[in-house]
């Protein structure tokens, strides 16, 4: 037998999806920027290719990262992906070796049992059938878990699972039907011919005892083919597009392409690579502390894919970056969120076309009519000359103890320093950026840059991680930007700051903007170890929590911020430390009212530990004199 009409749905689906994959790849490649095209070409002929293959095997098939976070969930994903892959691979080999001829069309491999029903009689064939049954059992075990997860997510260790659209549900049903219908079809056929191994053979002989095997099998072969065909046809419209897209993502990422700040091919590929696994929902503090579960990254990706309303989802987020850390696909979730926040100003947007099978780039009017200088009231600046500048930042001005501690440390260090915003400076611009208003932010950045240039300094120290991140990333400065924890660390290493040991037990809270945002994890902890007994919490480094006060979220109510803060504070002060130490004025301000423990900034701890009394405030006096002169008072 060479052909049967039941293979038509499968063939239609398969050739459709292959054609579609080629068309979409070409569109995506064409929309890449020129440098990215070059990166991709270089990646294709270079080391990146091998890396990508390895990563595709480990992540797309084995799902290593999910296995690490949640073994049961990982097993579910692995058995479906890797199992299905093995089924196709060994099925093709089976058809090639045992079939009538070599190089068969794909349907011959998929429906091998139908076309070769008496296969499995000899020992070698029976061995191979055993292998195929084993793989099918592997897939089915994952499928059972998936069904359980859909109805009770807690059973597989997930607190929440993603909500689905109707189309997703149809695709999900067809996916779920694929393997059971294959099992029953193969079993019935095997039962009729007395073949099959431990799974299909046993089930088949039992079914054949009361059913006419050959006739009963036929509708199930149809069902198997139909569910495959439906699944392939719906794949581009649903989250299952992540299956082929993730391969592109891995390859592009290994070639050195990054999200950047505009929507484009890479962000599109990322958005479509999200499998809605829901790991980001479980890790989100808005979910588990504030009970907000509509705005997590999986939902943002879904809303972008479906051209849904993204405004609230994009803005109601702390931008703490916890989901970026756990995303098993490695999607740059926060940069994509920022693109959505800037959407009003950005020139590119993607909209669905062809009933959602394709997406078109849409150009929006570039500039808005009333963009004019908002900050022309800012006075001409004339800063004093200094080697080291200290920029306290808005938030530090609200926590004067940090400011005073830094002044003591600076004076004790004996450096020629100047406090550029002692009388209240201009905002660094990051809060505006976080609200998606980059053009306004750029004005403040230019203003602050001028002050820094004019001062002739070589180092800029800031107490606020929010400022630190923007100085580091968005200012084009010829100075070394340091967070005060790094600066203190340098002073200790150089020996210019002599500190006593305080005999205090402290825990450290890593601020989001400093830790996950800027990758500064170790310096603050080393400083703390130098002056106190630093104890560990369950939330170190990448796994640290957000205090809830983040400027990233403009919508979060005061009450919800307080809920998050008190959850975090109680986690971090479980062991009753003398101090809960952080290195961000905003974290300090948010956490302090949420706990009975003392909350301190790292600079306050260090200032307390300064060994010798601070030397005469030479520099500070000179600075004040300069200010008076420049202001025309003296």
């Amino acid at each position, binding site marked *: 037998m060479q052909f049967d009409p039941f293979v038509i749905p499968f063939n239609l689906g398969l050739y459709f999806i292959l054609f579609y994959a080629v068309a979409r790849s070409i569109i995506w490649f064409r929309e890449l920027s020129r440098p990215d095209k070059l990166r991709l070409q270089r990646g294709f002929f270079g080391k990146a290719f091998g890396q990508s293959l390895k990563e595709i095997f480990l992540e797309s098939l084995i799902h290593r990262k999910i296995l690490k976070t949640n073994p049961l969930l990982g097993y579910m994903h692995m058995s479906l992906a890797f199992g299905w892959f093995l089924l196709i691979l060994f099925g093709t080999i089976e058809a090639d070796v045992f079939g009538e001829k070599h190089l068969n069309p794909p349907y011959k491999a998929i429906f091998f049992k139908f076309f070769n029903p008496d296969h499995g009689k000899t020992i070698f064939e029976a061995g191979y059938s055993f292998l195929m049954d084993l793989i099918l059992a592997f897939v089915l075990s994952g499928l059972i878990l998936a069904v359980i997860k859909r109805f009770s997510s807690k059973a597989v260790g997930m607190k929440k699972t993603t909500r689905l659209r109707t189309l997703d549900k149809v695709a999900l049903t067809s996916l779920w039907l694929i393997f059971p219908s294959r099992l029953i079809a193969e079993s019935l056929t095997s039962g009729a011919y007395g073949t099959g191994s431990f799974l299909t053979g046993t089930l088949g002989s039992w079914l054949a005892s009361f059913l006419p095997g050959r006739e009963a099998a036929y509708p199930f072969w149809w069902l198997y083919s139909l569910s495959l065909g439906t699944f392939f046809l719906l794949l581009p419209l649903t989250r299952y597009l992540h299956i082929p897209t993730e391969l592109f993502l891995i390859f592009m990422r290994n070639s050195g392409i990054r999200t950047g700040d505009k929507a484009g091919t890479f962000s599109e590929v990322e958005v479509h690579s999200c499998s809605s696994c829901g790991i980001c929902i479980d890790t989100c503090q808005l979910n588990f502390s504030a009970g907000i579960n509509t705005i997590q990254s999986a939902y943002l990706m879904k809303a972008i894919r479906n051209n849904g309303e993204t405004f609230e989802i994009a803005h109601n987020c702390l931008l703490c970056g916890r989901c970026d850390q756990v995303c098993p696909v490695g999607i740059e979730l926060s940069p994509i969120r920022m693109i959505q926040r800037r959407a009003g100003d950005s020139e590119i947007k993607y909209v669905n076309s062809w009933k959602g099978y394709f997406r078109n780039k849409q150009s929006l009017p570039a500039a808005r009519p*009333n963009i004019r200088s*908002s900050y022309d009231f800012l006075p001409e600046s004339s800063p004093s000359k200094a080697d080291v500048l200290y920029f306290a930042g808005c938030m530090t001005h609200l926590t004067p103890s940090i400011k005073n501690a830094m002044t003591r440390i600076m004076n004790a260090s004996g450096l020629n320093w100047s406090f550029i915003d002692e009388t209240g400076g201009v905002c660094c611009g990051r809060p505006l950026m976080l609200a998606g208003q980059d053009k*306004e932010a750029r004005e403040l950045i230019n203003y602050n840059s001028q002050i820094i240039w004019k001062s002739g300094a070589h180092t800029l120290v800031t107490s606020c991680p929010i400022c630190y991140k923007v100085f580091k990333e968005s200012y084009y400065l010829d100075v070394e930007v340091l967070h005060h924890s790094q600066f203190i660390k340098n002073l200790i290493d150089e020996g210019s700051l002599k500190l006593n040991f305080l005999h205090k037990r402290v825990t450290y809270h890593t601020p989001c903007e400093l830790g996950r945002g800027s990758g500064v994890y170790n310096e603050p902890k080393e400083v703390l170890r130098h002056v106190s007994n630093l104890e560990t919490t369950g939330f170190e480094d990448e796994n640290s929590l957000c205090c809830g006060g983040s400027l990233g979220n403009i919508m979060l109510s005061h009450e919800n911020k307080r809920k998050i803060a008190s959850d975090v504070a109680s986690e971090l002060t479980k062991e009753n430390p003398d101090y809960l130490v952080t290195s961000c004025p905003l974290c300090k*301000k948010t956490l302090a009212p949420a706990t009975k423990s003392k909350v301190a900034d790292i600079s306050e701890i260090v200032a307390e530990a300064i060994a010798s009394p601070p030397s005469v405030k030479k520099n500070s006096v000179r600075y004040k004199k300069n200010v008076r002169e420049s202001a025309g008072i003296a």
Partner: protein
Amino acid sequence: MEKFGFALSKARVIDYDANDRAIADYILEREPSFGACIECGGCSATCTTGNFTGFSLREIHILLKRGENEQVRKKIRKCMLCGKCSLVCPRGVNTRNVVFLARQAFQKEEDYAV
């Protein structure tokens, strides 16, 4: 006529019928804490922008609630969204979102007019 160097001041009447509360309503709908403001002025006292120029969030709050939007339209662009005001607010008003929404409302109004 002889100029005396002083004049009768213009009647300072707030005409709620003529004023347009649309923007205040837009904000209140999306940020209910806007209604909790007691006009204490804490926000204005701590304001980064207010340090440089006569910008007062308290004033803006009052003007918006009265519906005197034209005075707010230009002023509101001076805010740097640094968020200090929302940290000092004794009533837990999310002032940062109030400014954000007000700007958005003005923008929408202008986009619509164009």
